[in-house]
């Protein structure tokens, strides 16, 4: 039997004005288990807390009921007080007689009666309280960043700068991501490579960072502070530590006609290749689907010209297992496929391109060495039509396109239009828009410059149809302000394709038990207040995997995610919330119902031997809750049909005791 002390607070007149505190403490004194009951002007004051500590010592109290303001206000305070008095902090229950009683009722009689009932409920609960100790788990002081674009690079650099080890896993042969493919960046027009490649080099040279390029994450186990991750290093048939990146093999490779992914298939690369000059790691990779030697054992030219002896045709995929304390997802985006958008003739004409392809066409390292030439005939286009919102802002039920705004298209289209007019003033540039959205520092100024200084024709309306005719593209569109239908004979049409999360994100989310929205963007723990954390503890979000973002925003989020990771890794031990679920293994059926409702993946199953009444032993599958991962919502307790799952601090018997006390 508990020895319970009841402490009724006046809160000045806040409570005492509508509740007869003396009557409350008198009434509660008669409840079973209550050995001490008093009231005081301000329980939360130092004097009030001292009163509690003294009473605990004097009366050997084992549980405390404080009738005061909301537990959201002072529960933590009184738990500390209990601890000071030598009690377990979880032996305290608060009866909220201010916010939910004295402040909402006007008559003393009614307020007093209700306060007594609330006090009784708290007493009934504290009878069933048990001392709780938060679990502790160690933290592996190493972070994993999945994705090596600008988001992943920035996050990794910031974490490494704080002195922690970081590994980057990138599925392509080089880090750099989409930003490496861009020409200039808005709104300042610095060249993407000039600002990105130094960062890539920083990463490569940073002692705290390891880069696993051409690799992917295949398995994630464990929980915050203690993830066990398996990384598959795909065979690139070149020894990474030996290859010097000289490029002799690339020059000599006879299999030259393979679409170059880096230039979005607009030119070709050999079977052995280095994606671009500043690639990190600058190491060749053999495409096993293109290489003759790997396909049928005939060739071997690259091995012969490689003076370093780096080529290894027998290389196998390698699996690396590593422990991490935190995981950052930075899987990025891709433009959506234009296959379903027949009306723009993307598949019929080479001269209808996406904006990312346009970037490559204007990039000095691109397929045309930076000259803006039509992909079909290499001629200079004289009339270019840009179409915005292709596949963005579509109806949720539409068969094609995405419901959201892709956010970056308005600005890069203005950039493309401006750069075109700047380099080729004789080119006519039309931009068809629905709305021009430019919220960002210096963004609207940038767009206005495109119109006012560079004479880009912005037309409010949408392109309905593009028809190839001879070497022209007939663009039929509406001009809503002039109330006209236009027909423009363009040479080049550029589609601002919507962007979508990378396809690797969905299986990764499953591995991480991190939640996603219907568009496959990762969900943040709170849309406003915890934007870079996933609801799954220890998993953080960086860049476009969480939603469309431009570079400045991506970099800010990347650094924010790094700050969160550092805040986690700097701890030696993680202290959990002790109010968590726990399963009574003797009653557990192993049915998986609890596992299916757990938002955190905190529940796993083990086969365990049980001694039976007849002295035999029996193997049974039972649920186990990982105390470091469980957040204590209680969803599992209701999903469990046998009642094996219960929640500490809010156990079924405690809640029912409260119900009984209230209804008595």
């Amino acid at each position, binding site marked *: 039997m508990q020895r319970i002390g009841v402490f009724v607070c006046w809160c000045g007149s806040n409570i005492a004005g509508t509740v007869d505190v003396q009557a409350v403490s008198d009434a509660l004194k008669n409840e079973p288990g209550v050995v001490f009951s008093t009231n005081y002007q301000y329980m939360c004051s130092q004097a009030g807390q001292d009163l509690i500590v003294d009473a605990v010592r004097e009366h050997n109290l084992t549980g405390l009921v404080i009738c005061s303001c909301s537990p959201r206000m002072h529960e933590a305070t009184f738990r500390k007080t209990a601890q000071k008095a030598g009690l377990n902090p979880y032996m305290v229950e608060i009866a*909220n007689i201010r916010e939910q009683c004295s402040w909402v009722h006007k008559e003393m009689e009614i307020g007093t009666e209700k306060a007594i009932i609330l006090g009784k409920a708290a007493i009934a609960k504290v009878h069933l309280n048990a001392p709780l100790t938060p679990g502790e788990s160690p933290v592996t002081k190493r972070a994993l960043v999945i994705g090596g674009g600008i988001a992943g690079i920035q996050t990794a650099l910031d974490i490494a700068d704080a002195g922690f080890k970081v590994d980057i896993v990138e599925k392509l042969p080089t880090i750099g991501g989409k930003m490496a493919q861009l020409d200039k960046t808005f709104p300042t027009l610095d060249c993407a490579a000039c600002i990105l490649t130094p960062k890539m080099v920083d990463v490569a040279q940073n002692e705290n960072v390891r880069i696993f390029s051409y690799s992917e994450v295949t398995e994630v186990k464990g929980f915050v502070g203690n993830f066990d991750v398996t990384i598959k290093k795909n065979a690139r048939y070149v020894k990474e530590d030996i290859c010097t990146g000289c490029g002799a093999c690339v020059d000599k490779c006879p299999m030259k006609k393979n679409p170059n992914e880096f230039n979005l298939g607009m030119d070709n690369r050999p079977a052995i290749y280095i994606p671009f000059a500043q690639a990190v790691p600058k190491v060749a990779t053999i495409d096993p689907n293109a290489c003759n030697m790997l396909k049928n054992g005939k060739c071997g030219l690259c091995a012969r010209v490689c003076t370093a002896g780096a080529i290894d045709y027998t290389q196998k995929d390698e699996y690396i297992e590593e422990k991490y304390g935190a995981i950052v997802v930075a899987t990025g985006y891709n433009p959506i496929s234009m296959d379903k958008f027949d009306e723009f003739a993307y598949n019929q004409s080479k001269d209808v391109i996406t904006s990312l392809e346009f970037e490559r066409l204007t990039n000095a390292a691109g397929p045309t060495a930076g000259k803006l030439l039509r992909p079909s005939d290499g001629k200079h286009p004289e009339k270019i039509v840009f179409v915005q919102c292709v596949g963005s802002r579509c109806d949720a039920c539409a068969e094609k396109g995405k419901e959201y705004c892709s956010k970056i298209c308005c600005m890069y289209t203005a950039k493309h239009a401006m750069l075109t007019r700047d380099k080729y003033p004789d080119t006519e540039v039309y931009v068809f828009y629905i709305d021009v959205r430019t919220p960002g520092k210096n963004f609207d100024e940038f767009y206005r410059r495109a119109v006012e200084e560079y004479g880009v024709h912005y037309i409010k309306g949408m392109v309905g149809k593009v028809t190839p005719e001879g070497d022209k593209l007939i663009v039929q569109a509406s001009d809503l302000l002039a109330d006209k239908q236009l027909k423009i004979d363009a040479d080049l049409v550029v589609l601002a394709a919507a962007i979508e999360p990378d396809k690797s994100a969905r299986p990764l989310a499953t591995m991480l038990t991190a939640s996603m929205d219907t568009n496959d963007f990762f969900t943040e723990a709170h849309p406003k207040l915890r934007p870079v954390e996933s609801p799954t503890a220890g998993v953080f979000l960086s860049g476009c995997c969480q939603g469309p973002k431009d570079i400045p925003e991506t970099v800010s989020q990347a650094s924010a995610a790094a700050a969160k990771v550092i805040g986690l890794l700097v701890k030696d031990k993680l202290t959990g919330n002790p109010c968590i679920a726990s399963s009574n293994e003797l009653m557990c059926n192993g049915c998986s119902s609890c596992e299916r409702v757990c938002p955190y993946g905190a529940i796993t199953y083990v086969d365990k031997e049980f001694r039976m009444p007849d002295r035999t032993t029996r193997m049974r599958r039972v649920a186990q809750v990982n105390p470091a991962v469980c957040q204590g*919502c209680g*969803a599992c307790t209701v999903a469990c049909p046998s009642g094996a799952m219960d929640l500490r601090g809010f156990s079924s018997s405690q809640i029912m005791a409260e119900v009984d006390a209230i209804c008595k």
Partner: protein
Amino acid sequence: MQVKEYKPLIVAFCCNWCSYAGADLAGNNRLNYPADVKIIRVPCSCRVNPMFILRAFQRGADGVILCGCHPGDCHYTSGNYFTRRRMALLFSMLDFLGIERERTRVEWVSAAEGAKFAATMNDFVATVTALGENKRLEDLRCKK
């Protein structure tokens, strides 16, 4: 003969993060609602077992209301989505057994909706008062 005014007994389960805070806000703003409402704090609406609701009726409650974060705002991401399904099915079953459907309710109240909390409780108390005493799920042994 003087008839004693009928006062219903209402048990309100409120999730810690939204609705309990909403109730606190109602208090902060001194918004009145009947003292017949007694709140039990739970971490999340998904902690509420149908057994708790039946228990409340057994012990003499005349109405039980469950308050949680708005769908999509759950502190634990998905708890209230499970609550929504569980309670829809439970309430439908109680109705199937002929128990007045007005005695049970689910309401989403955010931490900012003190006014909604008070209004909801006023409305619920009025509804249950109009229904009168809970006879169909009573346990006479528990009557005063």
